[in-house]
């Protein structure tokens, strides 16, 4: 397959692994911030290719995983309103809330539909003018512009029964908070798709303020290994900086149009992150101007008190302090078919990736 096979070339991979082995002297910990990276690293079996000096740890870049359980509880509450259709990305459907999940509500007869794009949600709204379609907006700078586009489109087309319930978040506050919290890191494998939108500017502080390197990486084995090599070189030479490995997609200035859409629809607000607590200016709320499309403003629901599961260490895992295998629920009480924490549900969750590909390594 063109544009993929080149990045999965065994010889290139072996060559890169050898170079890494040669360059890497210090024991280092690199964090892959993005859940997509975690999945790729486990799926391709990358850890087995790295020398013992390098440890990869998973970060807070799985949107479903860092979201508050209250987000699920409130979406469940919306789904129970008689005139509401929930149109959601498939990832959310199995995430356990305090006492239910969208999956269970669907089985109980609520109208919950999986969409692949916010535009599909808009279509459902158009086809069901007597219903209200709620789209749970989840994700970082990657998916936030899509939700913004949904709202802008709805406004343009005069669709009045489309609402977004935003849990969108931005990445940099979490990356800074991790280091402020004392997580021991030597560099970031920075998220490729977030950076496609934002460009490199959002990481500028990390080398300056925290003396850590950031390499924006693609999602194929060659991308990941090359990014590790770039970080190793930065660390060994003591010159941390922001570099783009994923040059075929990421431009330094990012996607200006998408940034514009995001800025016009959303405004920053404090938001709660699993494991990190409330981070100022880390969430994207829908601005006053577009409040007609804001589920939080337009729908009143009673949400059950949030119950967190005891024993689940998702928070520690998202901070990179613990590995999924350190959790006593891992692969016992918590598995993808019967998940306790969100990290086990999402395809991008560290626990899910470890369970699926690395359970007994």
């Amino acid at each position, binding site marked *: 397959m063109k544009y*993929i096979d080149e990045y999965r070339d065994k010889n290139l991979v072996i060559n890169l692994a050898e170079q890494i082995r040669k360059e890497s002297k210090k024991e280092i910990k690199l964090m892959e911030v993005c859940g997509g990276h975690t999945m790729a690293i486990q*799926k*391709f079996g990358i850890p087995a290719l790295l020398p013992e000096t390098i440890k990869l740890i998973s970060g807070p870049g799985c949107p479903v995983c860092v979201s508050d359980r209250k987000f699920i509880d409130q979406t469940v509450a919306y789904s129970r309103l008689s005139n509401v259709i929930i149109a959601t990305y498939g990832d959310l459907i199995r995430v356990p809330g305090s006492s239910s999940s969208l*999956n269970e509500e669907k*089985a109980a007869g609520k109208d919950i539909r999986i969409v692949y794009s916010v535009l599909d949600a808009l279509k459902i709204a158009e086809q069901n003018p007597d219903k209200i379609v709620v789209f749970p907006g989840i994700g970082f700078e990657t998916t936030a512009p899509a939700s913004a586009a949904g709202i802008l489109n709805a406004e343009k087309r005069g669709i009045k029964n489309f609402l977004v319930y935003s849990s969108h978040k931005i990445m940099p506050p979490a990356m800074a908070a991790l280091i402020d919290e004392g997580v021991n890191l030597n560099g970031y494998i920075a998220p490729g798709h977030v950076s496609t939108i934002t460009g490199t500017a959002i990481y500028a502080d990390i080398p300056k303020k925290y003396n850590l390197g950031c390499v924006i990486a693609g999602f194929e084995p060659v991308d990941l290994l090359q990014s590790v090599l770039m970080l190793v070189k930065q660390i060994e030479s003591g010159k941390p900086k922001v570099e783009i490995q994923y040059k075929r997609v990421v431009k330094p200035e990012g996607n200006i149009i998408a940034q514009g859409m995001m800025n016009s629809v959303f405004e920053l607000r404090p938001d709660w992150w699993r494991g990190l607590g409330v981070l100022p200016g880390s969430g994207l709320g829908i601005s006053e101007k577009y409040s007609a499309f804001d589920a939080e403003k337009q729908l009143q629901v009673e949400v059950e008190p949030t119950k967190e599961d005891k024993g689940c260490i998702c928070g520690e895992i998202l901070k990179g302090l613990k590995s999924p295998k350190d959790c006593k629920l891992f692969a016992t009480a918590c598995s*993808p078919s019967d998940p306790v924490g969100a990290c086990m549900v999402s395809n991008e969750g560290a626990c899910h990736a470890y369970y699926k590909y690395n359970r007994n*390594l």
Partner: protein
Amino acid sequence: MRKNDRILLGHGSGGQLSHELIKNVFIKNFSNTELNKQTDSAILKIEDLNLCFTTDSYVVDPIFFSGGNIGKLAIAGTVNDLAVAGAKPLYLSAGFIIEEGFPMDDLVKITETMKEEAQKAGITIVTGDTKVVDRGKADKVFINTSGIGILPKKNKEIASGSKIKPGDKIIINGSIGDHGMTIMAERNDLNISAKIGSDCACLNHMINDILNASDKVSFMRDATRGGIATVLTEIVSDKDFGLIIEEDQVPVKEAVRGICELLGFDPFYVANEGKVIVVVASEDAEKVVAAMKNHKEGKEAAIIGEITSEHKGKGWINTGIGGKRIIDMLAGEQLPRIC
């Protein structure tokens, strides 16, 4: 751990939830020696005959797809369940649940396909049933087929896999994921136009030739829902051997890989309807591959791995790039109504 108090789509996925449902509800209530073996077909000794008996229901959506339709699936799926147990399929039943208002022409087309497939496979449909339900109470048409076949004595151990031993080779008859990704591409909410078709086919003639080529076949199973990952996990589960798969030896069509990449599927977990995993003694592996290649359904046959004495109870993959990881069963639903 939360108790599911309702049936979820995942309970029908063929993955972990299905296994739990079977164990906790069906086996619990129906428990008996034959059922508890949980093989694709029950092996029943009636007087001097060993009979294989199996049943399957088909609810695929859409009912017509590139490479087949629900009727072809209903014949092939049940024939294959008998054939992989080592049996010669003989007779089938066909039960139809039809939604009021379903076009007669479509029903005729489906039954014509069933007739053709049955003829090709050399089996006879000897009994049937028809139910019609109110419009909206079922979706178009659902089909159930049951089948019986005769099991030659020498094939008795194939279904249980009790003769599998380290060193045995693992073989597949062609590319994986074709059926699942064809259905996915054709589901009307996804506008993907890719040149792929379902691999849906009766495998009994090919399997017959495999068993004629080698008497050292230790296990066979068709890899349907849950994909080859689920079969590979089942082979080693609770056993004192493991297995290793060479990812780059597993055939995957370009278009299937493309759709998988696009939608985030792993082809190892995607459904097939014409693929069999064969485990055979190493010395006979090439013979089995050659026997497969004589058939249309086995042109791309390949040795993809082997049984190991290491990492007992676990399946491993050497990834295409030289990494290593485990293979696990499908958890949760991948695609509802795939067959």
